[in-house]
């Protein structure tokens, strides 16, 4: 909770198309200095007349503490609904209000263990920065990038620079191996004797990554993407059932207690078809006939 966060009037300095995504660079003084890999920013959308009040959250792809423009933050955005469409339509010098950095970063291992970083679609965005931090600590780093199709892969070239090995999968076989990241992950973990698997991407993928990591003796650290109204911990919309050290499952806020969770702590059994139920054994779960 004491982690530093700022709200700044940011400005777009670049917006370039990368495959199916837009890579935005924002001037956002103060964010870079506080940020760590795995954290995110929450961007206001639509300008002063906007009917879209809620911020949109994006993993920090990279930061530059200072430079020609003051500190910058990069994000990779998939145009989807009105907010992301507005963001991806911005031009240089347009204003964007930025709140960040938010959430808990990926925990770094104390020892130089081998790590596998798994990204699904734009989920790879925060991993390159993480890879660097891990390599600085002497970790062997491999990346596994997957997507539906080639245009939805992000950062394959950058991955080759940031990691000691890269495996690519696509659902349709348009790049790399045809299939899912989980199909190849076990082998990579085994080959590198990885101790930690970091993953960011859709829920289904995070669940499989958690299963594969466990089966191959690694710990999974997954960055989840729950629907968030505030991003700063005040609204309770972004909760997930996560089991604590005490063995008790609580509905915890993924914006402040996540977005990174130990995969084996997430109650995947409660998550299905776009709905996350409250497990019956969760603290304060509804009882028949009311609470």
């Amino acid at each position, binding site marked *: *909770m*004491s*982690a*530093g*966060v700022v*709200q700044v009037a940011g400005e777009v300095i670049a917006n370039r198309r990368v495959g199916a995504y837009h890579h935005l660079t924002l001037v956002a003084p103060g964010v870079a200095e506080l940020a760590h890999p795995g954290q995110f920013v929450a961007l*206001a959308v639509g300008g002063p007349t906007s*009917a*879209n*009040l*809620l*911020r949109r959250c994006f993993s920090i792809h990279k930061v530059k503490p200072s430079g020609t423009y003051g500190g910058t933050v990069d994000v990779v955005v998939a145009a989807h609904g009105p907010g992301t469409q507005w963001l991806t339509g911005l031009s240089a010098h347009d204003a964007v*209000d930025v*709140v960040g950095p938010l959430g808990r970063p990926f925990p770094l291992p104390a020892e130089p263990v081998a790590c596998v970083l798994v990204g699904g679609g734009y989920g790879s965005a925060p991993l390159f920065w993480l890879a660097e931090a891990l390599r600085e600590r002497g970790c062997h780093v491999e990346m596994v990038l997957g997507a539906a199709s080639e245009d939805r892969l992000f950062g394959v070239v950058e991955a080759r620079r940031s990691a000691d090995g890269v495996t690519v999968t696509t659902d349709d076989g348009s790049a790399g191996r045809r299939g899912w990241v989980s199909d190849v992950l076990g082998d990579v973990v085994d080959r590198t004797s990885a101790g930690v698997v970091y993953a960011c991407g859709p829920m289904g993928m995070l669940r499989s990554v958690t299963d594969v990591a466990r089966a191959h003796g690694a710990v999974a650290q997954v960055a989840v993407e*729950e*629907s968030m*109204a*505030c*991003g*700063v*911990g*005040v*609204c*309770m*919309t*972004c*909760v*997930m059932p996560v089991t604590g050290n005490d063995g008790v499952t*609580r*509905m915890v806020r993924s914006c*402040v207690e996540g977005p990174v969770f130990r995969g084996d702590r997430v109650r995947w059994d409660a998550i299905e078809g*776009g*709905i*996350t*139920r*409250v497990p019956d054994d*969760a*603290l*304060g*779960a*509804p009882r028949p*006939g*009311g*609470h």
Partner: protein
Amino acid sequence: MADMTTVLAGVELPNPVMTASGCAANGQELHRFFPVSELGAFVTKTVMKDPRSGRATPRMAETASGMLNSIGLQGPGIDVFCEKDLPWLAEQGARVLVSVAGNTAEEFGEVVQRLVASPAWSCVVGVEANISCPNVANRGLVFACDPVSSERVVQIVRTRVPDGVPVFAKLTPDVTDIVAIADAALRAGADGLTMINTLLGIVIDTDLLRPQLAGTTGGLSGPAVRPVAVRAIWQVVSAMRAGTVPTAPVIGVGGVRTGKDALELVAAGACAVQVGTATFNDPHAPRRVLTELEAEVTRHGVTRFADLVGIAHERMVTL
């Protein structure tokens, strides 16, 4: 500098701007953006007797100039609240309006009893009874939809809260006659009213063709509902001015995003204003609204905030 103090049923606050219950958690998160003690009062997330997990997710849907939420009153329960949250707020020097609820009228009483016993009780400047929540004993009908249920809750809460600490009843706009509910609450002993809670709404996910919220219905809030909040305040304050309802302070809430928005509620009769959903757009919103409201007071050439409370009733043009 304008005098921004406001008096709520005998309790003086340095300024009239508050957080709204459930839109600011219990303070620690917003304190990263501004000191919570700078607000007139900090309104806590509604606390119930036991810990509550809240509802399944999705719990929110964005709507045009607003949102739906169905949090389901997630919270740690009154004991943890008294142990952790209230003392933290007290330490920051915040003035706290504690929002309480129960599944039954009796449970409201139990929650208040434990609250009053808290060592940090002295930071409490009022209790807000969130009667816009379902009454398990009455087929889940919201207390504030029914004058009799409203009365019962208010009576119990008022009995348990020590004299000198005001009790506010928080009303839902989803009723045919909000003046009747206001009247019932005030006659039952409420020292003031908070208006409004959210409006019941549904959003359908047009891809999945099912309700977007896991719990189907949710509460609509944000600037979209401000005209309804202003109207509710106006109607109740009009009735007070006409003498048909006991006179009491009204805390306005609903769609406030700027100082001008706050002024709308104030001119309609609110002597304090809560900022809810706007906080999700701008974590500085409650603090910023205070600055902007001060500027409005100055712009209107009055020296005291209090001079603007209900002013629109006097300036109304009768046709």
